[in-house]
């Protein structure tokens, strides 16, 4: 459905990741008109960027893409991508979301996603969608299965050479597009704003991001993805096939010095998952996981962990003290082995840091919703109704309420949609479509 500048909906979902999409689909399926507001140029969130999911090792995009497509084609869902939420206000009439539609510098009604502009653009910049391991053009479709499949121009890296406009078959390029304010009014809102990883630059002991071949877990997801930057796992400094890969757990969590004193909950399992995938794609490589505790708390997670051990993945109970650049592109890991060797070190070809999980949305000054001490949105009924916030009619879903895995995120998103539907029904006294059904019976 097309988005318009001022629009009225039954519900607005802020965040178009897996939680937001699940909530929107559940609400739309019940007949509620729903808007999804996403800050990126594509919906899909973090999950569409992953390789596989644990503990089933199902392809992440095979799960996410159908939900993205279903949301995009649903008659009750309107997508607003590439938008910055400025304010979420709640009053007696409902929720009002003010936002800025950032310019794509492309007329999305005209763009057919042919990528001719992208192929002809002469400027290559690091592609953050691929962990920075390959280049993207100044004008591009964000990634191969992005929705919407529409180009956007990074104007800060555009030299206005005109090649994209010249080759565009539908004349969709708009170099002079401006940000546009938009306003959405709805009766209820779901905050599904997800997370960001803490930065590798925040820990001097781990090199502040300056040591070659030290990457974060989302970069490893891209190396493992079939449509990743190299099409296989290679060492980013020189393209070597790594013989020895290490994971440093709690690299950005349970660490008050980084401001993340809490456990990020899903790092243990994604490290185990990535290690299993690596041992499949690089059968001769040594894979080591340095951990403080392995938290395998979900259904079949312990079995998954035991399977990883049985596959030969080495688990070393140790807190890594520091990382240093070693010889020939290696990374020296210094740690205290808690099972006997004491302070020691080992070299690896590639080191993956399991960084901490930070809230993806800082509502301060934007939305008057209550936060917990960790900065995530606080649930007022964490045991009975975890999606209920202190703002009546505003619900929370997924990692916006605290770190959790995909299974719990999807379950909670469904719960948030049910809470929102219950709220809407209580407001009107009728479920959507009930009036139609009643009149058809008369």
């Amino acid at each position, binding site marked *: 459905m097309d988005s318009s500048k001022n629009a009225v909906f039954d519900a607005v979902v802020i965040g178009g990741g897996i939680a937001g999409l699940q909530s929107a689909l559940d609400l739309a399926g019940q007949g509620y008109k729903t808007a999804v507001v996403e800050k990126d140029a594509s919906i899909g969130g973090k999950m569409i960027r992953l390789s596989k999911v644990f503990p089933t090792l199902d392809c992440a995009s095979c799960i996410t893409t159908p939900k993205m497509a279903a949301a995009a084609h649903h008659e009750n869902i309107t997508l607003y991508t590439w938008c910055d939420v400025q304010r979420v206000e709640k009053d007696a009439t409902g929720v009002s979301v003010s936002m800025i539609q950032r310019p794509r510098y492309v007329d999305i009604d005209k763009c057919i996603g042919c990528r001719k502009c992208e*192929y002809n653009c*002469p*400027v*290559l*910049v*690091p592609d953050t969608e*691929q962990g920075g*391991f*390959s*280049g993207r053009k*100044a004008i591009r479709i964000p990634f191969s299965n992005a929705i919407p499949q529409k180009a956007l121009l990074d*104007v*800060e*890296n*555009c*030299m*206005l*050479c*005109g*090649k994209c*406009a*010249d080759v*565009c078959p539908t*004349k969709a*390029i*708009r*170099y*002079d597009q401006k940000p546009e304010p938009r306003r959405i009014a709805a009766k209820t809102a779901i905050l599904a704003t997800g997370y960001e990883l803490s930065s590798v630059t925040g820990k001097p002991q781990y090199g502040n991001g300056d040591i*070659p071949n030290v990457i974060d877990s989302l970069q490893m997801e891209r190396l493992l993805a079939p449509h990743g*930057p*190299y*099409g*296989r796992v*290679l060492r*980013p*400094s*020189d*393209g*070597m*096939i790594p*013989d020895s890969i290490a994971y440093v757990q709690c690299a950005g969590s349970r660490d008050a010095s980084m401001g993340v004193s809490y456990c990020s909950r899903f790092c243990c399992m994604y490290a185990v998952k990535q290690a299993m995938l690596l041992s499949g794609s690089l059968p001769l490589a040594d894979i080591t996981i340095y951990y403080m505790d392995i938290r395998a708390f979900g259904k079949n997670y312990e079995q998954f962990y035991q399977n990883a051990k049985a596959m030969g993945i080495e688990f070393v109970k140790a807190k890594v003290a520091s990382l240093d650049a070693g010889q020939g592109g290696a990374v020296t890991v210094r740690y205290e082995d808690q099972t006997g060797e004491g302070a020691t070190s080992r070299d690896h070809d590639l080191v993956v840091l399991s960084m901490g999980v930070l809230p993806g949305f800082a509502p301060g000054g934007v939305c008057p919703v209550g936060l917990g001490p960790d900065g995530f949105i606080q649930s007022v009924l964490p045991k009975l109704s975890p999606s209920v916030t202190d703002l009546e009619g505003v619900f929370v879903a997924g990692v916006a309420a605290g770190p959790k895995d995909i299974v719990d995120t999807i379950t909670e998103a469904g719960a948030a949609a049910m809470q929102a539907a219950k709220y809407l029904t209580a407001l009107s006294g009728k479920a959507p479509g009930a009036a139609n059904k009643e009149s058809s019976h008369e």
Partner: protein
Amino acid sequence: MSQDISAALVSKETLKALRAERRDWIAGASALARENKKARKAVMDRLAVASATVPEITEATGLPPDTALWMVASLKKFGEVVESEKDGSFYRYALAAEAAQAQEA
């Protein structure tokens, strides 16, 4: 470098104003495009001789190994380069056109 983009529904005056407004960005992007062009040519020239690993490309072009790999990965994405056979701890890369010809032959 500049082409006629009047067909893009932007008047010449608007374009002139945009060029003035974005002068610093345009200068940065132009410098980047020149660097990209040079690195791309160096990699393509080396691969035109024969398939090569990243260290071989580095040796021939003088590019740092991470830059050489980055350029190869970018060229691979846009279909100009393909991965060839494994060579020790590295993979070889070849020009897509030559690889296709070799396959046909």
